[in-house]
């Protein structure tokens, strides 16, 4: 099968194009360097099938970043039939350098000028024919976002591909690349001939918006207020839907499943209904909240506002030994820590990367958000619950700041920080819906494995040895819970909560599913009031502090180890977060009790 590699600079819509041509769903981000894993897909191009590979977005074939090394290695090691170059048409004045570099590698190539709809707005006019003559390759304007010019591009790609029978491999790539002065000269001649750029660009709505959003005084408060609004919106819309879904699931259990399974022995019926159904159902009822969260995050991320937050926060992050990118990655971590940790690959300095990786796990991810929404709704009044939830976000930031401040001496960093600020773009509604749906599906598929394992284990521990009263002190979970009391007692975590916490080490979704199983036995009352009946708010808040700060999940630990290539580093991160969690909960719990709460 023929091989086609997709190459392009960050922020050119390369992933959007890849998704469109493959029908797959590589994630797109308006953030340099987000595509780090190589994605590939089989695509029918003309009469033949080809394998299309999405290379990481890079600036320069001579560049020094890890992604740039990956692309060089790829081109030197993999025989390919065609390179598809994607550039941003409105920034052709600088991006054409990448196409010129590829020209000198003598690989068959097609250049796609993406965001062709945006270029005229900047006053950029391109004579496609002339660009094509200079480069010696077909050049086509497209809009990956709206699909304009897409069919013509596909035909041109198929045609060029059909002419190439044998694959090509670039040997000694470094020797083929031009010197900077030669490249500058070739760029000048091409641009002079084929491209008309205005002397000064018009004031557009990006510049107008930046005047407000990057305002020296109001910029940061506006950003924080925006994030606060996002979380409030998720809460305000998501919680009623979650409650409604939970009611539907409860109704289905009581009116359909219970009569249906009435023939089964008590032990198995309990296992299926109170174990698996309740555990998984409780987590599943939170999917609307996850969906909403990623929907809003897609707007923040793809609009270009996320890069602006790097600008706003950089001065502060620099004092912590980090930079604006670390802030953006931490923000991504509020969705899920795992991709955020992988995103640190754009950093070259090992010190900066490790310090960022140490900080990211304190980002309150969507799995933890479920636990907190559940707990706050159960324990606090509708008026105070959102405030309590917000206090956990503040705590999440505080833990990250404390960690960076304490460890920055250990991970010194002198990496220069230069970041592109792409123009503001509004993602299409279709994209936002698709993106949040994909993320939520990933969450559900991902958590299914862990939750079923977790709730089954917890249910069994609660109900074995056979015949003991469920979750009593004679059950296995009672015994384990009791054993933790010397350590967890002083922070207000009772034996039942302790069991949920222990399994939460695997994944935070289990904490919630586990609570459902542990407290689900209460007669005639729903789960939330059962929890509220057993513990008071001080215990609940201490439990939430601990859940927030201790190791996010096994996957995060695994990715910390693989990305740092150091088991020692991963172990240190775990030890630090568990230690911090205990100390923070201890201080809170003991002072609250001392104050008489």
């Amino acid at each position, binding site marked *: 099968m023929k091989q086609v590699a997709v190459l392009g*600079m960050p922020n050119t819509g390369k992933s959007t194009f890849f998704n469109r041509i493959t029908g797959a769903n590589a994630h797109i981000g308006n953030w340099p360097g987000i595509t780090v894993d190589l994605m590939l897909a089989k695509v029918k191009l003309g009469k033949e099938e080809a394998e299309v590979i999405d290379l990481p977005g890079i*600036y*320069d074939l*001579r*560049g*020094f*970043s890890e992604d740039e090394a990956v692309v060089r290695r790829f081109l030197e090691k993999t025989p390919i039939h065609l390179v598809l170059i994607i550039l941003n048409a*409105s*920034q052709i*004045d*600088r991006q054409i*350098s*990448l196409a010129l570099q590829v020209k000198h590698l003598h690989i068959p190539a097609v250049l796609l000028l993406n965001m062709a709809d945006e270029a005229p707005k*900047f006053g*950029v006019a391109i004579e496609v024919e002339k660009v094509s003559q200079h480069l010696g390759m077909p050049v086509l304007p497209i809009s990956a976002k709206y699909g304009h010019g897409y069919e013509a591009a596909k035909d041109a790609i198929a045609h060029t591909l059909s002419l190439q029978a044998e694959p090509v491999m670039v040997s000694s790539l470094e020797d083929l690349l031009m010197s*900077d002065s030669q490249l*500058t000269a070739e*760029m000048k001649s091409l641009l002079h001939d084929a491209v008309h*750029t205005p002397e*000064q*660009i018009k*004031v557009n709505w*990006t*510049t107008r918006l*930046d005047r407000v959003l*990057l305002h*020296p*005084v109001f*910029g940061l408060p506006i950003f924080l207020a925006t994030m606060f609004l996002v979380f409030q919106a998720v809460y305000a819309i998501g919680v009623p839907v979650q409650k409604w879904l939970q009611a539907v699931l409860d109704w289905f259990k009581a009116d359909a499943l219970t009569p249906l399974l009435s023939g089964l022995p008590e032990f198995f019926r309990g296992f299926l209904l109170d174990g698996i159904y309740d555990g998984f159902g409780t987590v599943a009822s939170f999917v609307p909240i996850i969906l909403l969260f990623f929907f809003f995050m897609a707007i923040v991320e793809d609009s270009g506002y996320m890069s602006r937050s*790097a*600008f*706003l926060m*950089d*001065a*502060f992050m*620099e004092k912590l030994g980090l930079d*604006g990118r670390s802030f953006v990655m931490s923000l991504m971590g509020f969705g899920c820590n795992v991709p955020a940790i992988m995103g640190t690959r754009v950093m*070259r300095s090992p010190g900066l990367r490790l310090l960022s990786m140490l900080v990211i796990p304190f980002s309150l991810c969507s799995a933890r958000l479920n636990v907190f929404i559940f707990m706050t709704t159960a324990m606090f009044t509708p008026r105070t619950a959102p405030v309590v939830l917000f206090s956990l976000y503040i705590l999440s930031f505080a833990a990250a700041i404390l960690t960076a401040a304490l460890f920055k001496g250990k991970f010194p960093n002198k990496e*220069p*920080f*230069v*970041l*592109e*600020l*792409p*123009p503001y773009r509004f993602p299409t509604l279709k994209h936002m819906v698709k993106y949040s749906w994909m993320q939520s599906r990933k969450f559900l598929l991902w958590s299914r494995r862990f939750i079923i394992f977790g709730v089954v284990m917890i249910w069994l521990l609660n109900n074995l040895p056979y015949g003991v009263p469920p979750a009593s002190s004679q059950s296995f979970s009672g015994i384990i819970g009791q054993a933790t009391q010397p350590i967890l007692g002083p922070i207000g975590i009772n034996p039942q909560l302790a069991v949920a916490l222990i399994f939460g080490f695997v994944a935070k979704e289990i904490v919630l599913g586990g609570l459902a199983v542990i407290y689900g036995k209460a007669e005639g009352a729903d789960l939330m009031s059962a929890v509220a009946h057993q513990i008071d708010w001080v215990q609940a808040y201490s439990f939430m502090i601990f859940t927030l700060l201790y190791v996010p999940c096994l996957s995060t630990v695994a990715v910390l180890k693989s990305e740092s290539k150091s088991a020692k580093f991963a172990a240190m991160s775990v030890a630090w977060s568990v230690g911090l969690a205990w100390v923070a909960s201890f201080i809170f719990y003991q002072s609250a009790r001392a104050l008489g709460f």
Partner: protein
Amino acid sequence: MAKIHLASLVPGQAATISELDTEPGLHQRLLALGFRAGRQVMMIRCGWMSGPVHVRIGTTEVMLRRREAQSIEIVNVMSQQAA
């Protein structure tokens, strides 16, 4: 004439890049972002608390720290109307 660098521009001023005086890694990145000798660069804004600067070169907008901006030497400073 004393050398002047990009960080010394005030918002609204533009100048021509004369030389990049940086380590190789940053040098390549700056070139790819459009910072080449002879090109015009405009200062849009400076971040608070000696934070990063926001500049425009061609149609590309870039933020960089002042330390990095100090390594970009410029000539022909001219004032323009604010961006």
